[in-house]
C-alpha cells in the first residue's frame, strides 16, 4: 500500500500541472479545471489500487480520463456557454460585450480561446507537444497515430491556430 502511495505521489507531482493545464485550456473556469483534474487523479488512484493499471501507462491513462471528463462536462453543460470566436466576430456593439472584452483582454486569454476553437485533436497535440513538452513518439501514442501522421497533425494544428488567431486580430473587440 505504501509503495502504491509513493508511486501515486510521484506521478501526481509529475503530472498535476500538465493535467490541470490540459483541462484548464478546455474548460471555462479555474474551478471546473480543478474539479475535473482532481477527479482524474482520484480515478487514477482507484485504478492503481485495484491493480488495473501499470505505472508505465500512467500518463496516457491520466490524459484519457481527463479527456473523457471534459467531454462529459460539456455533454452535461452544453458547449454553447463557451465564448465562441465566431460569435464575438459577429458582435457589432463592443459596449454590449464589455465583460467579454475585459476577460479576453490579455494575450493569454486570446490564445486560450483560439485553442478552444480548434477541433479536439488539434487542441490535444498543441498542448502535448508545445506545452507539456512530450516527444513526437509520446504524442503519437496518445493520439493513436503513427509518428509521421502525428507530425502532419501537429503542423496542421499550428496552421489552424494561426488562422484562428488572425481572425481574432481582425475582431475589434481584441484590439487593445
Amino acid at each position, binding site marked *: 500500500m505504501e509503495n502504491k*502511495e509513493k508511486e*501515486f*505521489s510521484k506521478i*501526481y507531482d509529475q503530472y*498535476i*500541472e500538465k493535467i*490541470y*493545464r490540459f483541462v*484548464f*485550456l478546455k474548460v471555462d473556469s479555474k474551478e471546473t*479545471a*480543478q474539479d475535473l*483534474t*482532481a477527479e482524474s*487523479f*482520484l480515478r487514477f*488512484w482507484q485504478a492503481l489500487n485495484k491493480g488495473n493499471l501499470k505505472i508505465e501507462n500512467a500518463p496516457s491513462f491520466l490524459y484519457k480520463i481527463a479527456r473523457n471528463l471534459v467531454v462529459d462536462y460539456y455533454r452535461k453543460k452544453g458547449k454553447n456557454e463557451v465564448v465562441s470566436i465566431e460569435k464575438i466576430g459577429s458582435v457589432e456593439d463592443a459596449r454590449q460585450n464589455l465583460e467579454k472584452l475585459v476577460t479576453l483582454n490579455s*494575450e*493569454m486569454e486570446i*490564445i*486560450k480561446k483560439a*485553442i478552444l476553437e480548434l477541433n479536439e485533436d488539434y487542441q490535444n497535440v*498543441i498542448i502535448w507537444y*508545445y*506545452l507539456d513538452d512530450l516527444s513526437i513518439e509520446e504524442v503519437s501514442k496518445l493520439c493513436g497515430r503513427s509518428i509521421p501522421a502525428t507530425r502532419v497533425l501537429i503542423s496542421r494544428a*499550428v496552421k489552424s*491556430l*494561426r488562422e484562428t*488567431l488572425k481572425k481574432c486580430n481582425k475582431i475589434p473587440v481584441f484590439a487593445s
Partner: protein
Amino acid sequence: MEILQKIKLLKKIKPEKEWVFLTKRRILGKSNLSPLFEFQSLIFNLFFRKSGILVFSLFVFSLFFSAIVLNSQDSSVSKRENQVIFQESKTETLKKEEIKSDKEIAKSEVRLEGNTSKPASNVVKSKKSKNISQKENNSTKTENFETNNFASKEQQEDIENQTQLVAKYLIEYFETRSLTEEKKEDLKAAKEYFEKGDFGKVIELLLK
C-alpha cells in the same frame, strides 16, 4: 516563430500550490503531510480564502485581546510580588525582635552564671545561624524576583513574536493583492517599519 511563443505563454498556467497539496491529501484519504504544512494551509485557508480580510481582522483583534489579558496577568503577578515582599518584611521584623530577646536572655544568663563562657558562645552560635538563615532568605528572594522577571520577559517576547507574525502575514497578503497607489505607499512604508522591527506600526498602517 511568434505563434509558438504565444503558445508557450500558456505554460504560465499553473494550479495553486495549496490546492495541489490539499487535493493530493484528499485523494490519499489521509494526512501524509507535515503538521507544520497542515497548520500553514489551515491558516491560509481560514484567513485568506474562506472569509478574507474580515476573518483576518478578527484574528488580529483576538491577538490584541490576548495581549491585554497577558498584561493584566502581569499586573496581578506584581501585586502578588508586593504581598510576598510585605509578608517577608513582617517576618524579618519578627526575627529581629527574636534576636533582640535572645541577646537580652544571653545577657541575663551571663549576669547570673558569672564567668562561664559557654552561654555566650551559644549566643554567638545562634547569632551566626540567624545571620546565615537571613542570608538564605535574601538569596531566595532575589531568585524569586529573577524568575518573575524572566517569565514576564518571555511573555513579552511571545507577544512580540505574535505581532511580528501578524505583520508578516499582512505584508504577504497585501503583496498578493492589487492595490491602490495609496495602499502601495502604505505597503512600502510598512515593509520599512517591518525591517526596523516596529511591527505594531506595520499592522496599524495596513489595517487603517
